């Protein structure tokens, strides 16, 4: 794309700039402000320097939440990406069944996140939920409110239920862009099913899969509502992920300083990882054009 140089284009970007500045920069400045001050109530603030950052960096509680967060994101990516690809490959290509599967698959994505939590909270209960009740009657000692492992499994299955469709739809979009001639050529070349996947479908899905992984990574790293509704971060702190911990700190205990320092570092970690993704994506794009 050859774009002409035109500094007046800034005027077109201005509304976005003002809006995002209002809803992002000002709050972010507030956070920065809090992160370097201490307060003893009464809106009196004192310069605290990097004290809060040190506290957060050495806090075992934050370390644990970060560890849980990384494990959680890794697990759900490891499940959702292959499963999403499998579903995309299995979807009907056109016609009534394709439309129907699209609508059904997209449905979980449009459910408010706390309702997702509520659905699974009910579904997993051993007294009134289909899943919990079935497991209990099969003799499995399952209880997500008591047992940390059960809580983890429930939260992960819930996330897979909620978000695999996003990966599947993105991958499906990638598959739809493959011209029929590629499959025909593969038939003529006697390529195996695996070769078709490896050399035709996967390369064409590469771009959208990167978007999918990026989105899923970011959103899973920020997950709050769904596990909060189901487990409240428990039992104990078993499912207290970073956002849950942060909200507990900021709104629950009103520890503004540490919460603000926590926020900034949290944001930076996501930015850093996303930047790596972004660079990889842009480089891949460029390699494709060369």
């Amino acid at each position, binding site marked *: 794309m050859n774009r002409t140089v035109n500094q007046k284009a800034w005027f077109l970007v201005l509304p976005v700039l003002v809006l995002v500045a209002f809803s992002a920069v000002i709050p972010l400045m507030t956070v920065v402000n809090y992160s370097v001050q201490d307060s003893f109530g009464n809106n009196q603030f004192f310069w605290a320097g990097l004290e809060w950052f040190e506290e957060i960096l050495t806090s075992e509680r934050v370390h644990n939440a970060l560890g849980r967060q990384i494990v959680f994101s890794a697990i759900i990516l490891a499940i959702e990406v292959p499963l999403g690809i499998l579903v995309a490959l299995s979807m009907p290509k056109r016609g009534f069944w394709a439309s129907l599967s699209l609508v059904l698959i997209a449905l979980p994505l449009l459910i408010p996140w706390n309702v997702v939590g509520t659905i699974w909270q009910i579904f997993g209960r051993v007294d009134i939920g289909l899943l919990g009740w079935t497991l209990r009657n099969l003799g499995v000692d399952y209880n997500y409110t008591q047992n940390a492992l059960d809580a983890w499994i429930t939260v992960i299955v819930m996330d897979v239920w909620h978000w695999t469709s996003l990966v599947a739809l993105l991958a499906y979009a990638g598959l739809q862009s493959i011209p029929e001639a590629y499959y025909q050529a593969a038939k003529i070349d*006697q390529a195996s099913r695996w070769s078709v996947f490896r050399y035709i479908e996967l390369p064409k899905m590469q771009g959208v899969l990167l978007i999918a992984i990026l989105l899923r990574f970011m959103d899973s790293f920020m997950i709050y509502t769904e596990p909060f509704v189901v487990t409240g971060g428990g039992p104990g702190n078993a499912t207290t992920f970073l956002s849950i911990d942060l909200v507990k700190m900021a709104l629950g205990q009103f520890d503004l300083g540490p919460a603000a320092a926590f926020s900034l570092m949290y944001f930076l970690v996501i930015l850093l990882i996303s930047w790596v993704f972004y660079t990889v994506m842009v480089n891949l794009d460029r390699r494709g054009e060369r």
Partner: protein
Amino acid sequence: MARITLSGLAHSYVPDPADPDDWALKELNMTWQDGSAYALLGASGCGKSTLLNIISGLLAPSRGRVFFGETDVTDAPTAERNIAQVFQFPVVYDTMTVRQNLAFPLRNRGADADYVRRRVESIAAMIGMEAELDRKARGLTADAKQKISLGRGMVREDVSAILFDEPLTVIDPHMKWELRTQLRALHQQFGHTMIYVTHDQTEALTFADRVVVMHDGRVVQTGTPEELFERPEHTFVGYFIGSPGMNLLDAQVFGDTAWVGDHAVPLSGNYRPVRGRVQIGIRPEFVSLTSDGEGLPVEVSRVEDVGRYRIARAHHEGEPVNAVVAEGAAVGTGRARAVFAPERINVYVEDWRVAPEAEQGRAAR
């Protein structure tokens, strides 16, 4: 390698075709001789790609059978038919190198590594891509990619047939000529049956031993380039082949004379009485313009110089009549008379050619 026979073949993309227009391919019986180079010529949407995909097994025909040699392959999948096909737009495996691309069809059939290497190198030499063999296919230009597709189509020596579906669409004009020449050379060298789909008459006439012209889901004529030029069996062939196409005039035919309105046009043979819409067709090459005397009165509106000869665009009562005029011959716009060479006139009834009695008699004997 094998002769390909199509028997009672027809195809429709709609589930329950009622109207003749629902058939993308109307009933067709024909044989493709082993080792010949065919061109399948027609305008877009005439059913030529459908026919090609049925032969390669990518499409199951609604009815009819396909034989390779004596074997019925109608229900056989593409892989079992052992054919190669090159598509209109380049199909390359982006993540592979050029070498891996070319080797892919051989490797999938479990060919010996040493053989694969030699074969890939000779094909690379033929398509002129030896230097790029170890580059990724991804960043190459469209015509380089299409050359890889062609190479992949030709890499196997044991194929029953090689099918080309307008393979040179994306190639530069000068490369087109070169590649076509190479395909031709390859054909002479290995004797593969080749079927080459195109909508470009020059491509068809220069590539093929025999040209199969399709129109509206039917094969309207199969023949050598000369036959198509001199004896178009259908008005479409006359119109589609040649530049400009054949002149067609509504006429009444009695015996050895055609009447265009009040004007008599002599024919070379006697015709039996015919019914339906009758037209006479004459190629512009066999029309001469005179300023006086006999011939159909025409109004010359324009004379175009196209290099080695000139084309006079004229009209007879609103119907176009074109004539090819040799370089240097005097011709101007305005009134003129058009004289048709009688032995070059073909008579068409409802778009199909009818032969004069003498010819029919010969055929019967």
